[in-house]
């Protein structure tokens, strides 16, 4: 049984309009293996798995399950073939219990009475067997991300799948939760299941997979057993020959040279006992105090939704500061409007670029000047100077490699990665003594991440301060001079470069530990 072929995809091709997302891709999955599927953003990993799960219909290609050809037209077909998928965004009903969420859409024993005791018992058994600890009777909305993901995995296991696909499962987890997920996956494959693990994080894939396949630009690059793979080989496969891995920032372990580590003395941003509350008056950010000095990148780590956005928005004047002090260069910013802050030289890369930073019906040039429409050189004696605006836009399009036929193109036609480049171009092209950047590399491929990192370091070299809020610990540990960890709106601790420890930060992220 072991090492027999569980599933095979042959010659899969999928195009969207003129864009070929997958071209002649093959994937072979053995039984009892964890198969890492690696690739940058837009490499086609998720598209391939959506084809397997019946969400996309491929233009060409075949799927064989235990050497028998199968036709998968919908997720329903996939589940009846024993294929389950856990998406990046969970599809759960918040007001239902764990049990109710898991049995939803399955055949129930006691349908008329909705007596779920038997089902609950089975879920309990499964959760113990695989080490996916969860209480079946708790409401899903009360659970943290890590547990909600277990619910999603249990959903698949409950339906008796043999193949489990996990799409970027570690995005919102603390390092400890990642460890425990990996242990559960081990138990599953030992019982004969196969797991496909989609990720763009090298270290994770190396630590858990039995075999690793790399996709790039919708094509197969290589498939290797774990013991033949090394970080170097995988990086080359992921990014091609275009990137000098030796000099790359994204893959550097030790971080930066000494020059780049210098931090200035003068504080740019001073925050003292900052409070932010929601409409009901409940605190979202509690008693935050920190300083960001010249030439400093100050990181904030944390699981999404622990007050990062509220912290950023209060400093940008988007949300009112309910208590405490905040000042930039000794000028208080409490009560200032966003427009005044932008004029003072604070700039912002919002986390949710579509909601918070993007004008879909306006053109690319209009998007590039949002927030700066009253500043030189765009503004001249009461009128906008469109010549200057388009000239600046064309320069930014070239410098930031924004893929668009023209600066007059409606911004709605840009792809996600290009929209992010517009956000970056806007933030980096206007001189700012303080940058507030929230997940600035989300949705970018490795080449573009590289670019963002070098821009952040360039700012640092020029003596400017940066507040970097990120869910990517590797990114923070690489770039930051200090990292604060935020948990439920409060700093659980601030670590200096040199004492960064992934697991300690992880414990602080989940509220188990504080550090003074």
């Amino acid at each position: 049984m072991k090492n027999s072929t569980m599933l095979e995809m042959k010659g899969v091709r999928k195009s969207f309009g003129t864009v070929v997302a997958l071209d002649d891709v093959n994937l072979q999955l053995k039984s009892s293996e964890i198969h890492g599927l690696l690739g940058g953003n837009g490499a086609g990993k998720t598209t391939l798995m959506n084809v397997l799960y019946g969400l996309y219909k491929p233009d060409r290609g075949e799927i064989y399950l235990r050497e028998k050809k199968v036709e998968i037209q919908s997720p329903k077909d996939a589940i009846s073939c024993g294929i389950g998928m856990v998406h990046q965004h969970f599809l759960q009903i918040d007001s239902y219990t764990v049990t109710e969420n898991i049995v939803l859409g399955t055949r129930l024993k006691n349908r008329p009475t909705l007596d779920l005791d038997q089902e609950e018992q089975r879920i309990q058994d499964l959760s113990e067997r695989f080490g996916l600890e969860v209480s079946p009777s708790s409401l899903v909305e009360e659970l943290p991300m890590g547990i909600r993901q277990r619910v999603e995995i249990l959903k698949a296991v409950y339906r008796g799948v043999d193949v489990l696909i996990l799409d970027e499962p570690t995005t919102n987890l603390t390092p400890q939760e990642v460890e425990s997920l990996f242990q559960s996956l081990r138990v599953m494959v030992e019982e004969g299941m196969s797991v496909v693990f989609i990720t763009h994080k090298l270290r994770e894939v190396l630590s858990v997979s039995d075999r690793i396949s790399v996709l790039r630009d919708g094509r197969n690059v290589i498939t290797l057993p774990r013991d033949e793979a090394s970080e170097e080989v995988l990086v080359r496969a992921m990014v091609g020959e275009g990137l000098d891995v030796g000099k790359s920032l994204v893959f550097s372990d030790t971080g930066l040279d000494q020059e780049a580590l210098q931090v200035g003395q003068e504080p740019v941003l001073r925050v003292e006992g900052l409070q932010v509350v929601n409409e009901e008056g409940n605190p979202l950010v509690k008693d935050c105090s920190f300083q960001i000095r010249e030439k400093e990148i100050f990181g904030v780590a944390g699981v999404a939704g622990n007050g990062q956005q509220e912290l950023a928005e209060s400093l940008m004047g988007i949300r009112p500061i309910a208590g405490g002090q905040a000042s930039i260069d000794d000028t208080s910013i409490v009560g200032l409007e966003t427009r005044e802050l932008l004029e003072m030289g604070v700039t912002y890369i919002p986390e949710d670029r579509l909601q918070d930073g993007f004008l879909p019906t306006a053109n690319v040039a209009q998007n590039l000047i949002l927030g700066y429409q009253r500043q030189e050189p765009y503004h001249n004696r009461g009128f906008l100077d469109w010549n200057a605006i388009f000239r600046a836009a064309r320069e930014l399009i070239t410098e930031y490699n924004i893929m668009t036929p023209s600066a007059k193109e409606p911004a709605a036609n840009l792809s996600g990665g290009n929209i992010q480049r517009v956000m970056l171009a806007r933030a980096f092209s206007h001189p700012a003594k303080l940058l507030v950047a929230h997940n600035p590399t989300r949705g970018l491929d490795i080449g573009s991440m590289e670019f963002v990192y070098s821009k952040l370091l360039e700012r640092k070299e020029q003596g400017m301060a940066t507040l970097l809020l990120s869910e990517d610990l590797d990114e923070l540990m690489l770039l930051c001079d200090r990292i604060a960890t935020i948990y439920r709106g409060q700093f659980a601790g601030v670590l200096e470069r040199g004492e960064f420890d992934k697991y300690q930060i992880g414990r602080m992220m989940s509220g188990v530990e504080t550090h003074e």
Partner: protein
Amino acid sequence: MSEQTTELGHSIKALADTLIPYILAVVAAFAAVGIFFAAVGFDVLQAYSTILFTSFRTPNGFVQTLLKYVPLLLQALAFTVPLTAGKFNIGGEGQLIVGAIGAAAVGIMFSGLPMLLLLPMVILAGIVFGGFWAAIPAWLLYRFGINEILTTVMMNFISFSLIDYVATEIWRDPTAGHPTTVPIGAGGEFPLLVAKPPLNSGIVLALAAAVIVYVYVNRTPGGYDLVATGANARASRVFGINVRVMFLLSLIVGGALAGLSGAIEVAGVHHRLIEGLQSNFLLLGIIIGLMARGNLLAVPFVAFFIAVLEVGASAMQRTMMIPVEFVFIVEALILLFVLLSDVVRRR
């Protein structure tokens, strides 16, 4: 050099991409109604030549078209300016009526004043009253977040009662068989641009308003704020635009434009306040704004086209006994096909 050529090519292609769906929509709408005309037994060609060419055959037809054009253009702007900020002003009718009431009130109360004083006062009264009528729903939106579509519509109904009261109680003209006020002072009347057939100079103001609105929205930072707010209010707020003030101002400017058209109807066309002077300008204005897809450069042209159709429709009813409602069907179908072309293009 080559870059400029490609930019130019890009512009020409963009213009063609915009115009072709319009032309197809117009042709398709006329074809669809033509089939119906033929089935009922009307002379299709004669009907269409009446609709399309009445405006251009006689000086009178052309002047009639321009007189229709003024309120249609201003109503379309009153709808389109708030639309630029993402808000729907469905109260242009009420704003026109209240603007007309303001203009008439000033024109009657100060009827002795010379033109140099009275005419600007009449125009200003129309603008201020119209703006005030829009400011009520705008403030309710600003202060309490009440949906402006509901409130602007409801303000229309209040204005119907208001004009009734003014025209039957306060300044009633006892000799008229229809609720009408006494005439305004001669100094409040618009001077004529052309004496025969009579064309008043209101059209100059309407066109000036269209130009000012276009330049403001497209060339100034304030206009940029308006466009950005309409494109994504949340993102605009995050980047420092006070979007609630934008909502408020755009609705008030819309009301002022509608109020101006009320003043022109009173001071230019009727020289008094007449109940029903709002005609169906509101609906046509909304149709024009939607056909132009909110593009302020397109609005004056689309408005002229609709004015031609309207004048042609009346002529068709007079000479061929074909009800004007058929032209409403044509207009509705054009709008439908223009909107449909968006869906088709997205596929």
